[in-house]
């Protein structure tokens, strides 16, 4: 065994590898790249990444907003952690905010005040951190909507959808942990509410609460514990899952909207290097810039105005940050009679259902949806081309209905603010929301589906008869008509390149004697669902129909000698 240099380069050791393009040119960059590659073999992987093609559409950047907001939260969070003291130990305040001087408060609150008033740039960074957290959750929500409504969750991306839903749920938990840290009146009220929610868990509630708080509320343990979760565990899980999310996007290739030249086998767009490195890099700074601008101009969570937490006071308008609003709204809507006693226990279903059970239930349903739809359609193919939302009317309707349910719950969390700002009775608003939470989703489903079908019919109309040009033409014999312009092939392709599956027919599973009742039941259920999805459908214009429409037009122009002749004539003038 020799430890002396053998004279072989790292490249020789990997002789079996397919040759990676050696860095060309003799500049310093190439030399450095070569040096790094000889020691790490990164060239191949980097080349794979750099050449990766991404399609261009603004809605594909919604996820990027979430990613950048998260990175901004990480950066600003590190800054905040330099000064924040996660301790419930009491000290008298001696900082520069006058209205609180001499007030006894926790070190957590005192250090947050110090960040806001005594650390240079601290308030700005704190506000960026908080606004970026809100933006993170907004961007996740709209990104999720985009993915759902375009059918981007279909095979092979179901797992990535599941990862996304978990990320989304963790993001709100992470947000709540951060919201609870400063120990001001609002966040303390939030922890108090959370403690109540935990206690409402049947049987194990009070034990869980004691375990988490290290005894009775509030205790001194919860702030350091939440801090560990907020800066250590949850960010680690978030970043891990997020990495998996992105790696899967690279592996699956990005989906694209249908269009000329775009197929299920290719991706039409630009390579990561140099186009998207520039675009995405630029977009990061735009997101950072917008968030900084907002943070410099608009206050978020003025903790100094809330004052220190102590369990006796509470403030009017105590709400969680918006992303927890749906759970708070559900809690506000649940009627009190759902609490009852049974077997010597109190079952607080009026609290538990909304504040605790709803969150995992919503995210489980969301995570399961791709599998449900795949089962109904029986579609085992890979889908790399997106659906335009209108071309999947029932899915779009379901998505919007689910979102409207979420929005109604979220708005219900602001019932008190609505009451004072609109001069209404909070009781009436609550009753109204109890009604809306059932009515709105159904209504939204129906309206959305109808709109989608109308848009599809409009698309058909446009393909068959052209675009309304807005030009009114009078013929020699005094007839008026609007000139229609034929679509060019590129525009037309976008309107006809989709599938409109028909409902599956009920297959005859067995004859009348050898009945397989279970299988029949299952098949019937599936056929019913399939009919629910696809019974109302508008088929894309077929080439035959298009030809017929054109032929019809020609024919009319010859015999009638009016409309279409005029169109043709007009076109020549153009």
């Amino acid at each position, binding site marked *: 065994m020799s430890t002396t240099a053998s004279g072989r380069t790292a490249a020789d050791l990997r002789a079996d590898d397919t040759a990676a393009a050696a860095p060309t040119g003799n500049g310093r960059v190439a030399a450095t790249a070569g040096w790094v590659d000889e020691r790490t073999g990164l060239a191949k992987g980097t080349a794979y990444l750099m050449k990766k093609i991404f399609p261009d559409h603004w809605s594909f950047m919604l996820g990027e907003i979430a990613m950048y907001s998260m990175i901004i939260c990480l950066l600003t969070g590190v800054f905040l952690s330099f000064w924040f003291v996660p301790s419930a130990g009491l000290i008298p305040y001696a900082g520069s905010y006058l209205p609180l001087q001499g007030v006894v408060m926790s070190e957590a609150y005192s250090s947050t005040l110090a960040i806001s008033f005594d650390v240079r740039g601290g308030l700005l960074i704190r506000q960026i951190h908080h606004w970026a957290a*809100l933006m993170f959750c907004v961007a996740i929500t709209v990104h999720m909507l985009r993915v759902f409504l375009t059918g981007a969750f279909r095979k092979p991306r179901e797992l990535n959808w599941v990862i996304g839903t978990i990320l989304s749920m963790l993001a709100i938990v992470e947000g709540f942990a951060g919201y609870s840290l400063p120990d001001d009146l609002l966040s303390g009220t939030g922890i108090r509410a959370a403690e109540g929610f935990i206690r409402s868990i049947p049987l194990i509630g009070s034990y869980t609460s004691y375990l988490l708080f290290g005894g009775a509320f509030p205790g001194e343990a919860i702030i350091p514990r939440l801090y560990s979760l907020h800066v250590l565990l949850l960010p680690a899980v978030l970043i891990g899952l997020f990495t998996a999310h992105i790696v899967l996007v690279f592996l699956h290739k990005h989906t694209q909207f249908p269009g000329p030249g775009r197929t299920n086998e290719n991706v039409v767009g630009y390579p990561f290097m140099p186009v998207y490195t520039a675009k995405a890099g630029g977009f990061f700074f*735009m997101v950072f810039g917008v968030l900084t601008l907002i943070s410099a101009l608009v206050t978020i969570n003025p903790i100094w105005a809330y004052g220190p937490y102590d369990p006796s006071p509470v403030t009017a308008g105590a709400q969680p940050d918006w992303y927890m609003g749906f759970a708070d709204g559900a809690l506000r809507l649940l009627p009190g009679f759902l609490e009852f006693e049974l077997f010597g226990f109190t079952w607080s279903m009026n609290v538990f259902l909304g504040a605790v059970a709803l969150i995992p239930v919503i995210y489980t349903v969301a995570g399961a949806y791709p599998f449900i739809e795949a089962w109904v359609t029986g579609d085992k193919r890979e889908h790399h081309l997106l659906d335009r939302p209108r071309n999947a009317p029932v899915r779009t309707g379901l998505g919007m209905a689910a979102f409207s349910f979420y929005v109604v719950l979220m708005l219900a969390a602001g019932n008190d603010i609505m009451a004072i700002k609109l001069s209404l009775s909070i009781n009436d608003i609550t009753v109204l929301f109890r009604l809306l939470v059932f009515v709105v989703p159904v209504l939204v489903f129906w309206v959305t589906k109808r709109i989608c079908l109308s848009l599809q019919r409009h698309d058909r109309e446009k393909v068959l008869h052209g675009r309304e040009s807005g030009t009114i033409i009078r013929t020699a014999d005094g007839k008026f008509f609007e000139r229609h312009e034929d679509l060019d092939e590129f525009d037309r392709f976008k309107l006809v390149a989709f599938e409109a599956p028909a409902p599956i027919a009920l297959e005859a599973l067995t004859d009348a004697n050898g009945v397989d009742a279970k299988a029949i039941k299952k098949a019937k259920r599936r056929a019913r669902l399939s009919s629910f999805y696809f019974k109302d459908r508008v088929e894309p214009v077929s080439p035959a129909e298009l030809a017929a429409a054109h032929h019809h037009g020609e024919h009319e122009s010859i015999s009638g000698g009016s409309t279409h002749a005029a169109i043709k004539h007009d076109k020549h003038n153009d």
Partner: protein
Amino acid sequence: MNALAARRRHPAAIAILLLLGLALVGAAYSLLAPKPAQAAAPSAAAAATAEDAALGRQLFLANCATCHGLSAEGTKSGPTLIGVGAASVDFQVGTGRMPLAGPNVQAPRIEQVKYTEEQIAALAAYVASLAPGPAIPEGKEVTGETGNVALGGEIYRVNCAMCHNFAGSGGALTRGKYAPSLYGVEGKYVYEAMLTGPQSMPVFNDTNITPEGKASVIAYLNATMNQPNVGGMNLGNLGPVSEGMFIWIFGLLLMIACAFWLGQKAA
């Protein structure tokens, strides 16, 4: 006209038209909106002393007796005023809550006070003459000069924030009632409100919150409401609801505008 016609299918046309329409409607409204009727003020009495209870009684009979009864004994439409004291009258009339503009769950504060200071003093003198009650507070306590800001903050958070919100922006109560905003309310009226407990508000008497405590609350309100907004616009100091609304409307809109602009850029 031709240039305009050529742009009528511009993507921004609808937005611009809508904005123009809104601006037009807004301008027309501000021009044509009915102005609040100026009640002809009855000739003001020159001096208001305790002896002017007689003038107060005249004003009372003319303006208040319909609801509060001819001798302030109260009717179905208004409570008795016997024993409410001068402080209550000064608060209700001085902040424009009385005379009530119309039946409602609660009398709102109105900037345009209907009576002159002399008339209010006369009314107060009349009501005070019916039975003993809290007098109109005076001196340094009502201006908050003697108060301790930090102590006032603690008292405020324990006793007031639950309805009036942490920053005094107001909050909702049941069935359309509300705790009003404390912005721009004179110290004297804050003191009187604590003393008399108007509408849904509980009474905070002097054993409950001492006069020094009340002065401290006023000092705290003065200190926090007159300080600059260090964090920028305060969004009404309403808590996370307005913040959430802001990020959904303005934050998301700005981000999507950026994304859209970037998506339009050729590679």
